């Protein structure tokens, strides 16, 4: 699913990038051909995305435990699963943590990605090549081995981070447990998530930056604009469609973070580390309450729909402005 979203993202970005000059909208005609042409694609999307989503919605209305799983037969309970999780204080904590985590991670990822994209534009060719290869390497590292590497680095007994901090004189970090305090633990998780998110975002933004007309920047500079003014009044408005797409994608990814927590904490994260995806997985596959787990997942989808609605609306507004 993530891969599918990413592919969409790429297509979306390319479309925005290569948006042709304003064109006249054709008068819509009752013509079946376009619908016939998109039908296969729609069918595939409905099958790949619609069916699991439908199943999820259906499962969230069922009492579906291990016995029901074994008998392939659930019991309809209406909205009872939602009532149960929404009245669970643990779930409230999970929601709060997930939202805060997402905001911080999206913010940091976008900040560093923009920073690196701007840097890429200014450095020499060799450095740009090195930096880009570095980014691509990070992007290409399979996520599980990458998390295992990070896990070793922050290991309690043998971690290089503790060793380094101690030797750099930052204090006594021998046997420092990074996951004892959830704030520290989430900091480590944030580092890993942001590290993994930067390459895609930075490369996309860099691609967008190359499209900023040089003459606009030159004109602004001649008029005495400072670099930050150029950035704020020229670069950002031109890159707005890209920023919107990347913001919405980052929000989706960071709200769904699962592997970083699950693998890093040896598949037994303590309750402090339950993000909404971990909560959903735990309920479904550890406690075998598939109905409750699905309800949590539905809540997650609902929140994402609300959040991304804003971005989608903005994107549509932008594209209609362009097409005027």
């Amino acid at each position, binding site marked *: 699913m993530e891969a599918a979203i990413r592919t969409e993202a790429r297509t979306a970005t390319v479309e925005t990038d290569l948006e042709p000059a304003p064109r006249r909208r054709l008068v819509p005609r009752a013509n079946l051909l376009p619908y016939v042409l998109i039908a296969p694609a729609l069918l595939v999307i409905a099958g790949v995305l619609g069916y699991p989503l439908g199943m999820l919605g259906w499962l969230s209305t069922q009492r579906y435990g*291990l016995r029901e799983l*074994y008998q*392939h037969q659930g019991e309809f309970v209406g909205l009872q699963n939602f009532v149960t999780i929404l009245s669970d204080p643990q779930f409230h904590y999970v929601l709060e943590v997930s939202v805060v985590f997402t905001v911080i991670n999206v913010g940091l990822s976008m900040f560093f990605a923009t920073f690196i994209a701007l840097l890429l534009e200014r450095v020499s060719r060799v450095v740009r090549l090195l930096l880009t290869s570095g980014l691509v390497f990070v992007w290409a590292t399979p996520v599980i081995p990458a998390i295992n590497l990070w896990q070793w680095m922050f290991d309690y*007994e043998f971690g290089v981070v503790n060793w380094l901090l101690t030797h750099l004189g930052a204090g006594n970090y021998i*046997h420092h447990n990074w*996951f004892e305090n959830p704030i520290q633990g989430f900091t480590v998780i944030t580092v890993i998530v942001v590290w993994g998110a930067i390459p895609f975002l930075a490369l996309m933004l860099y691609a967008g930056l190359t499209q900023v007309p040089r003459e606009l920047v030159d004109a602004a500079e001649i008029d005495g604009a400072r670099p930050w003014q150029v950035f704020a009044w020229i670069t950002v408005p031109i890159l707005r469609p890209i920023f919107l797409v990347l913001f919405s994608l980052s929000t989706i990814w960071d709200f769904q973070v699962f592997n970083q927590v699950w693998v890093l904490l040896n598949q*037994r994260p303590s309750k402090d580390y339950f993000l909404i995806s971990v909560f959903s997985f735990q309920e479904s596959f*550890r406690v*075998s309450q598939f109905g409750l787990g699905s309800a949590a997942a539905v809540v997650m989808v609902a929140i994402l729909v609300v959040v991304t609605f804003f971005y989608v609306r903005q994107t549509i507004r932008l594209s209609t402005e362009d097409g005027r």
Partner: protein
Amino acid sequence: MRPRKLLFAAVAMAVAMLAAACGGNTPAATPAETGPLTVWLMNGSAPQSVVDGVNADFKAKHPNVTVNVQIQQWSDVTTKLDTAFAGSTPPDIMELGNTLVAKYAAIGALQDITSKKSAYENSSTWLQSLTDSCTLTGKLYCVPYYAGSRAIIYRTDMFAAAGVQPPTSMDDLMTVGQKLMAKYGSDPNFSALYFPGKYWYAAAPFVWDFGGDIATQSGSKWTGSLSSSQSQQGLTEVNNLVSKLSRADKTGDELKQDQAFAQGHIAMIIANGWEVGVITDPKSGDPTLQNKLGAFPIPSHNAGQTAPVFLGGSDLGIAAHSKNPGLAQEWLQLLAGTKYQSQMVTVGGVIPNTTTLASLSSGLPAVFAKAATNSRFTPNSPNWANVESGNVLQDMLVSIFTGKSSIPSATSAASDKITQILNG
């Protein structure tokens, strides 16, 4: 779940029923059963030589049947089992931790083998607590495989250098530990008693020793009892030991404790008998420790007695949907029979499934076998597995050891949660 899966399941069920009908009460496999036979064993349960031996004997009888023995990991086995049982082709035979059997027996995923019990060697002398774990509402759903109990493994050379003897009471354990810390404590990696924070099965003996328990049953209703004053007393004792004697990760689990022990910076660990083999394994451990290891039971707070330990262990079940129930039974008869159970004791160092073979234990394994004579079991409820997979006990320990919650508040939260889950 999905229509196609349903269809498969229906077909599988029909085939299974047909096979069962053909099989009747005769123990031997019917000609209709052609395998392949899929067996799931847990990581570290049977030594490879035992598995090879069973397969060779089986092959001699059924040359055309392929047996696939697959080794599963404890950390994710429940998820895998859930999925396998829900699908149309579960493994024919699976090893189940004794605390997991009730959960799967209750949903009908395991074959009822009550009528076939006598076909298994030594079934009249099976370990009572393992047989109990296989029994739900008077019916037998699995075959006892082996048992394990924990004791303290220690470094004899370190004890000698610090001038201490294996302790005979909990207070003594603390004294011995502190002497070891005084002797070796300048090494920042040294732990006198290495105790990872999530190691619930090492903490349980302390709770039981003071008269506490995890939950008590009256009628069909369970009540969590970790918040009782006796349980709290036991946990206070563990907390003292951990804070003074252990430098292990307070949020870590026990999965790597043998490798850590083999590194040479640890004097004592609470471990299963088979872990001696992991510690001295040439690949993962240090074979030179072979002659420097001793073991003693976890001492009670009453001097001279031992604390009750959790009787762990595994059972072997046949999937209700197995297409080869007859073949599965024959394979099981070998692994659970005298010949290979004897090897499990002598090579694997575990406690065998029958009391008649217990005397084969010698040396260190004998200490563990003796510890098992004073043993306890977790609440035998189909919902118990959810307490385990919900990390209720682990979370409680971690919050106590890290000082995030006081013992009264951590135990009361855990106790409520356990009451809620067990009464499901």
